[in-house]
């Protein structure tokens, strides 16, 4: 078992983005709806939600879920 050069480079990118304190996936899910609505409204990310942005930069699954959520936001606009 060994890391390829590409895998090392991808890991380096993740390491460079790493913070001492990060949200886990459950914590991210609790905040991602608010984060997505702020993003859709063109608002700058509030300090309390910067941790969501950081988690999404690290976590492929949460990022995939966030991208899918964004696809629905226009629809949600009309059915809240």
């Amino acid at each position, binding site marked *: *078992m*060994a*890391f*390829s*050069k590409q*895998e*090392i*480079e*991808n*890991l*380096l*990118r*993740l*390491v*460079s*983005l*790493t913070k*001492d304190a*990060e949200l*886990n*996936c*459950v914590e991210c*899910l*609790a*905040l*991602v*709806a*608010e984060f*997505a*609505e702020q993003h859709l409204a063109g608002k700058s990310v509030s300090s309390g939600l910067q941790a969501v942005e950081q988690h999404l930069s690290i*976590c*492929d*699954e949460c990022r*995939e*879920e966030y991208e*899918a*959520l964004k*696809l*629905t*936001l226009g*629809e*949600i606009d009309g*059915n*809240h």
Partner: protein
Amino acid sequence: MNRENDTWVAQLIHAGGKRESALSDLREVLLRNLRKALAGRPHVDDSFLEDAVQDALLRILDRLDQFQGRSRFVTWATAIAIRVALGELRRSRWQDVSLDTVLKEADFVPTRAVDTAPGPALQVERQAIIAKMHELIATDLTEKQRNVLLAELRGMPQDEIARHLGSNRNAVYKLTHDARKKLKSALQKAGYDSEELATTLQY
């Protein structure tokens, strides 16, 4: 169907006709939103969507007390439904793939990098960082941390890694977060800070 957040929660909490009506409306909204969110993905048909929404409704009802009203209720509920549905799609895609298979694939140690860096100095720097990373991965991480990081880098979902380890997605995230922090700290001790890493990785 338009409800304020407080109304959604109040109607879903209390048993009765309003609850049934709210559940029916929420089910309809989630079906529509999931169909839009997952459009074009393989294996997503009406049956899949119905099952995902049913599972999602159970989770949403279970977590109603965690809704803080900081977003629209429907956005919050849709985020949960998307996690349920994408989790199921990932599970079905990876259910027959073992962790060992993932770790054995592409098993090689790079001996010489082929870089497209603009100058030899950056190429040398990049090679040095990669060599240092190989060393730190071998010396500073546990075998479990190495395996989980590698499986993630090869695309295995955290839920699937957790399933193989008898763990959960949060524990897997913590394991890799601890590993990344160890590597970052060791790189800093070796003289590489985040800014330098970012610059070197741009090429």
